Each structure stands twice: as C-alpha cells, then as structure tokens.
C-alpha cells in the first residue's frame, strides 16, 4: 500500500505541473461587474439603439440571469410555485422601494431592479399599508378639522377601510391586467423589442404606489395648497417611474397609440390620488351642512347650509 500512496501523490504532482505550465487552462473565475462587456448578448447593435441597452440594463451585472431559466418551473397548483414570487430578501425590497421613489433618468425600473425576479411581497404589503394609511390619516385629518365644533361627534369611520381596500387593490391588479392585455395585443401587431410579463407589470405598479404612503400621512395637514402640492409632487415621481418603464414597450408602435397609452397610465395614476384625497379627506375650510335630524314624531328637520 505504500506503493499505492506514492502513485496517488504522483498523480497530484502531474496535475500541479500541468497547471503550472498552462496557468489559464481550466481556471474558473467570477468576473467583477465592470468586466462584463456591454454586448454580452451578442446582439446586432443598430445605430441609435444604444439607449435601449441602457434602459434594459444589460450593462449591469445580471447575476440573476443565470437563474432566470430555472425559475418558476413548479406547476401552479403547488405551494412552491407561489414561493417563487416571494423569493426576495430585505435589501432587495428596500432597493426596489428606493428605485420607485427616486427615478433615475434613463434607467428602467423593471430591468434595473426586478430583473426577471418579480415579487408579490412588495405590491401586496404596500397596498395593504396604503389602505390603512389612507383610512387612518383620513380619519385623523377629519378629526383635527372638526375639532372644537359643538355638533361634531367623532366616529372612527370604519366603513371607509373596506372601500379603500377595494379601490386600491382593484387599481393594483386590474389596471396592470388591462395594460398587459393591451400590450400583448399590440405586440401581436407590431414587433416590440421590449415586452413585460404580467407579474412584472403588477410589480411595477405595486412599488409605484409606495410614494402615496408618506403622501397620505402628510395629507393630515389641513391646508389645501399643501395637499395639492403633495399630489403633484408624488404624481411626478411615481408617474415618471411608470412612464420610463412603459415608454420602451410602446415606442415602436404607432405614435398616437404610444402617446395615448402613456397618457392613460399617468391619468389613471392621478385619478387614484385625487380620488382618494377627495373621498377620504374632508376639505379643510368649508362649512358642512348639518346632518339630517330625525325627530321622534316623524317629521324631519333638514338644516341647509350654503
């Protein structure tokens, strides 16, 4: 067995010698992100399309691309399938939230942050937080506005929570569904370079709603000007994220349709904000008509103000 051991060592020696002779032979190294060449996909670059790559983020390190082909292979009736939509870490969620609030000009939110790993955690819990933020802030704001009035009796207004929930979840799911259907339909007519999956659109919309959470809390301030400034500001921020995400997807289409699509996206986003402001937050300075007071003998007294 002494001979056996010597034989084994000899083999190792041979291998070491071979490696010393050809240092580049079989080494596997992990590249730094800056080393990845710009056109690693080997696509034919058309002039004037460099911005596509930038928007698509192919110059970033796409470590997750290696895994992209292996994801979501479980059938949809298993628990593991849904687990693939929650495959995010804390820092990833925080990064995506940051990306939705601070739009980087020229960078596409989907390609930069989501990178074929759309998650449902962000959209779901951001919507839930937004529902309660709006309901609680609306309630607080109304309380502060009417404080001191003798006829005012505080009510928690719990009905409004379910209304807020319906509205916000409907917006977060139905609008992406409609947009996805529309993009698929246009894709069948015009060849688009960029196309998004349904989950990615839901993801973008969910994260774009995040800015409304601090906005809703700041809406407690009972000043009309402040509230409208906040609406415009948050609409600009999240609207720009949406526009920068979806403009590449419709750019190749008919000019008018592309503009109409983007305009509709922004309009619906604005409608949500304004609608929530109008419904959940009473106007600060107006007087209110006194409530209808039913008198016991059946006659009703209606006091009319304004």
């Amino acid at each position: 067995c002494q001979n056996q051991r010597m034989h084994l060592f000899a083999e190792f020696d041979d291998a070491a010698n071979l490696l010393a002779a050809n240092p580049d032979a079989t080494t596997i190294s992990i590249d730094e992100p800056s080393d990845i060449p710009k056109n690693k996909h080997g696509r034919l670059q058309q002039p004037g399309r460099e911005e596509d790559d930038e928007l698509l983020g192919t110059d970033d390190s796409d470590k997750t691309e290696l895994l992209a082909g292996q994801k979501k292979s479980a059938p949809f009736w298993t628990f593991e399938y849904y687990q693939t939509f929650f495959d995010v870490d804390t820092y990833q969620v925080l990064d995506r939230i940051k990306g939705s609030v601070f739009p980087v000009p020229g960078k596409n939110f989907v390609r930069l942050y989501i990178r074929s790993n759309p998650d449902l955690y962000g959209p779901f819990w951001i919507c839930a937080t937004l529902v309660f933020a709006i309901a609680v802030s609306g309630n607080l704001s109304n309380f502060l506005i009417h404080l001191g009035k003798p006829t005012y009796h505080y009510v928690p207004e719990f009905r409004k929570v379910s209304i807020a929930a319906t509205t916000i979840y409907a917006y977060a799911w139905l609008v992406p569904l409609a947009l996805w259907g529309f993009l698929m339909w246009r894709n069948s007519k015009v060849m688009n370079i960029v196309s998004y999956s349904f989950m990615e659109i839901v993801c973008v919309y969910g994260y774009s709603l995040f800015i409304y959470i601090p906005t809703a809390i700041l809406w407690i301030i009972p000043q009309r000007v402040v509230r409208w400034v906040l609406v415009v500001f948050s609409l600009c921020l999240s609207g720009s994220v949406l526009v920068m995400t979806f403009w590449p997807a419709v750019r190749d289409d008919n000019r008018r349709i592309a503009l109409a699509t983007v305009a509709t996206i922004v309009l619906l986003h604005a409608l949500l904000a304004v609608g929530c402001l109008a419904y959940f937050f009473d106007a600060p300075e107006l007087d209110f008509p006194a409530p209808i007071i039913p008198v016991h003998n059946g006659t009703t007294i209606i006091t009319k103000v304004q």
Partner: protein
Amino acid sequence: APPLRADRPGVAQFAELADMSLSGDITVEGEITVPVGAASPDEDFSTLDEPVRETIMRDLKAVGKKFVHVMYPRKSSALLRDWDLWGPLVLCVSLALMLQGGSADSKEDGGPQFAEVFVIIWFGAVVITLNSKLLGGTISFFQSLCVLGYCVLPLTVAMLVCRLVLLAGSGTVSFIVRLLVVLAMFAWSTLASTAFLADSQPPNRKALVVYPIFLFYFVISWMILTFTPQ
C-alpha cells in the same frame, strides 16, 4: 468468525465481512420491556371515563399557561409545540364584543362591527402566516396562527383598561391615558410575537416577516384607540 483486526487496511476488512456466511441459529441475549396497563395508547381511552370537569380544566390550564407565556415572553416551546386555537378564539370574541359601542343607530359610520373585527383578526393572522411561509419560514401554519392569536392578549387587556377609563370620563386626560396604555400594549404584542416567530425565518428576511405583524397589531391598536362609546 475470524476477529476483525484493526491493523488491516480498510478495504480488506469489508472484503472479509463479505466472505463470512452465517449458518444455523444465532442466539441473542437481552431484555425487552413492553409497557402494559397505564401505557399512553390506553390513556386516550381512559379520558372517556374521567369527569367532564377534569377534561375542561386540563384544557383551561393549557390555555392559561400560554397566556402567562405571552405576558412574560421567554423562549418557551409550549406556545409553539402544543398549539391550540381556544385562546385566540376567546380573545378575539371578547375583543370584538368590547369594541361594540352599542350604537343603536347603525347608519352612522361608527366603529367596526363584530364581524369586521373577527374577520380582520383571523384573516389578518392567516395572511401573515401565509406570508411567512411563502418567504421560506419553517413554522407550521397552525403554530403561527396560535402565536399571533395569543399575542392579541396584551391588546385585549388594553381594551379593557380603555373601557374602564372611558367610564370615568372622555376628556383629554382620559385620551392621553388611553393612548399610553394602547401604545405600551401594542409594543408588547409586537415584541412578544416577534420573539416567538422570528427564529423560524430565514435570517435575511426577518424584517420582511416582522413588518406585517407590526401592521396587524397597529390596525388592532387603532381600532382600540378610536373606540368611542355612543
């Protein structure tokens, strides 16, 4: 059989074993004890004969022990291992009942109805459990429901205190007292449930699991704080 020698190389040992063949009977010596009489399978049957009071008291004691574990959160396995949903049910029902303002005029946008509180607590707990399981948590479904339900106990105590304070008056002082009590109990609930649940989560997703729990108890605290008797 030839003795196995330690100085032979390993391969040779196994080769020797493979060569061995056994024939004839092998005598084995030892002791086997089989529990007879008051063994555990028999215990289940004998609970049929015990007085009803004993059965109920056993469950009540288990629930009571869990209440104590929630109020003084330590790493106890009782809440996790022997989960039960009686405690959460009792807490949920009593909280929902206490949140009823007794308003005859239900057309006003008042506080949450009984069914709303019930649905919020149970649906909220289910959603949080699903969330933690989807994120890769190792806790079982009912264990998580059990912990979340039991950790509503500090908030139920806060509700009780609030109702008593409101009996005394509903001015600014009472509001400040109620605010402080609800805040303290909200923190207690969140910390207690986090202490029990956080260990079963993957380490880089703990915040993702704790945040919904925070939101859940925040909503319940809000309902308690804004309670106004009609």
